[in-house]
């Protein structure tokens, strides 16, 4: 921590996991910090992960120079309801997943083609009518982007994405709820 960095001015993407008290205003505090200080949010997800302990987990994908990323982590850490901040990008190998729902409208060949591509991407059709499908796809951001890109000319009319959730590989835990 607190060294000078190689390639200081390069913009990099980091995935940051934050464990917070699930209390009113906590998300506003995190978002307010990003908007107030001009940091980027590429994706942000939040949900309660431990109801007994009243803890929520926030996953943020953000971008900036190394100095800005350090600042973001330091600023997050000093929020009172924040328990733990992990830079998952620096922590090493990790799994990142997003879920997307896509609505594709069409008949005939396009419809067949959409189904074929969904199959390749292991997307599931979770709803269908004579002229539409809703696909569910799970994967990392790049995979979802690719799938959405391919569906665009095939009648894509609606997209909903969850944003990224992430977890480090190996035994290290952010939450530590099952540790004892």
């Amino acid at each position, binding site marked *: 921590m607190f060294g*000078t960095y190689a390639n200081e001015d390069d913009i990099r993407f980091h995935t940051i996991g934050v464990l917070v008290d699930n209390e009113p*205003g906590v998300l506003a505090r995190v978002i307010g910090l990003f908007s107030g200080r001009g940091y980027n949010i590429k994706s942000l997800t939040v949900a309660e992960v431990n109801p007994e302990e009243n803890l929520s987990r926030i996953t943020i994908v953000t971008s900036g120079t190394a100095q800005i990323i350090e*600042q973001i982590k*330091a600023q997050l850490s*000093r*929020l*009172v309801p924040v*328990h733990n901040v992990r830079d998952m990008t620096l922590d090493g190998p990790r799994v990142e997943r997003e879920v997307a729902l896509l609505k594709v409208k069409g008949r005939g060949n396009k419809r067949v083609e959409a189904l074929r591509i969904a199959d390749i991407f292991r997307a599931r059709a979770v709803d269908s009518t004579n002229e539409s499908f809703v696909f569910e796809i799970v994967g990392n951001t790049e995979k979802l982007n690719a799938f959405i890109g391919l569906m665009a000319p095939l009648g894509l009319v609606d997209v909903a994405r969850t944003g990224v959730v992430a977890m480090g590989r190996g035994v290290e835990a952010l939450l530590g709820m099952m540790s004892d």
Partner: protein
Amino acid sequence: MPKEEFSGAEIVLKALKDQGVDTVFGYPGGVTLPLYDEIYKQNFLRHILTRHEQGAMHAAEGYARSTGKVGVALVTSGPGATNTVTGLTDAMMDSIPLVCLTGQVPTGLIGNDAFQEADITGITRACTKHNYLVKDVADLARVMHEAFFVAANGRPGPVLIDLPKDVLMDQAQYIEPAKAKPRSYKPQVKGDAKAIEKAVKMMAKAKRPIIYAGGGVINSGPKASKLLTELVAKTGFPVTLTLMGLGAVPASDPRFLGMLGMHGTYESNMAMHGSDFMLCVGARFDDRVTGALDSFAPQAKKVHIDIDPSSINKNILVDVGIVGDVGAVLGEMMKQWKALKAVPDGKALKNWWADIDTWRARKCLSYKKSGKMMRPQFVLEQLREACQGKDVFFTTDVGQHQMWSAQYLNIEKPNHWMTSGGLGTMGYGMPAALGVQVAHPKSVVVCVSSECSIQMNLQEFATAVQYGLPVKVVLLNNGFMGMVRQWQELFYGERYSETRMEVHPDFVKLAEAFGALGIKVEKSTELKKAYEKMLAYDGPVIIDARIDPTENVFPMIPAGHPHNDMILGPGDTVETANDEEDVVLA
């Protein structure tokens, strides 16, 4: 037997008592009536009724800054609450520990645009260290204690608690402070020993060192100031202080170079610029201090001690960052310095001091004493002399008089200098002085101000009179928003747009109207007498000192310029001074 229950209002008072609070600054209203009723029934807590909620906030700040305790303010919902926003932001910027209690409409009405409803936790999220809306009286005691912990620990700051009226009336059990530690907030106090050792080794090697210290030293407590002064003596390093740090090392210490930054001394800024090693202690590389970032102390290896990790590497990348309480880290540093038997590089230091002495010889704070009008510098030097030997606290407002005060009042002790540094809030000085005087009834409390700033919270004079708080206000009356006028003169072709108020009250009569004493001073020769009269008078005083309206604050580094680009006096110029950067005002 079930545990005894108390009303929310009673719980608030019990918590204040257990937190050692003996004074609150406040202003009542409909939804805080249950609290005011409890205040009526007890006598451990003194309530100072200000004339405006902003006044209550700055008074609480003055109280906190001069005692090291948490300042407490109590206001009503809606307009009472919104009036605290400037004070909260001020405390946030200057790291002043406050707890601000706001009334709120009953929980059932929240969100309905009820009478005097304001979403104050939403409004103040960005200007408080933390805030709470208490919706259940069962949480109240815990939240109260947690708020005091958060305000005072780590980097201090303001915490707001919003209290709906029904919560103040509902019943619950009380819990003691020891049982209410926050779950998550655990600031780091002790510095990393390895980093400290590294810093000490760098210190021993330094050839042109400088210690640059700020408000964090004051916040850490008098022990930190003592340690810093010892470190300066032990190493023989020169030391400079920020506006917020004044008093951390006595101004009379021969190794003190004066304040640094935009209106800092020539020797401080030159020493910063030329240094090869910088120890930054509880300061934050603010833009008013660093000037142009890319030419800031270009050759210096930098060590930064701060309790707030987000202050480190925020504006300036440093070589060693040490997160921890300044006092704890300085103590450890002294220990390691002794343990390693470190000695400073005497020969190099001697050369360095020789350089510094040539900068000092420019006497950047000298000024022309001739002329018909009084010089503000002289007015302040005389004030300093008049107060010699007394325990004197100074507060200021914002503008030229503030910078002159920083330059000429020579603050000797920590917690004796109260000024709005980060936010630069005109109207801070007078109510802050009230708060200081409440905490130090026997000491002399002087607010140095000017005719514009003082009018921003003038109403608090009545508060001073009501409570017999003998604060002394010295107006450096230049008939202008002097600081803005100075920028117009230097950077806007002397086009004095809207910086002169054509009408001002007669400050002598005004003082009298409040039941205070007013003294007008127009000649330097009258000053001494006026100060004697001021100090002898047992009550609030306004001295209306008419100074030369054309006087400017020097030295000056225009915003965005490097430290060696200083304007030393009238007639001196810096190239390219008139660019966009320059329009950011103090």
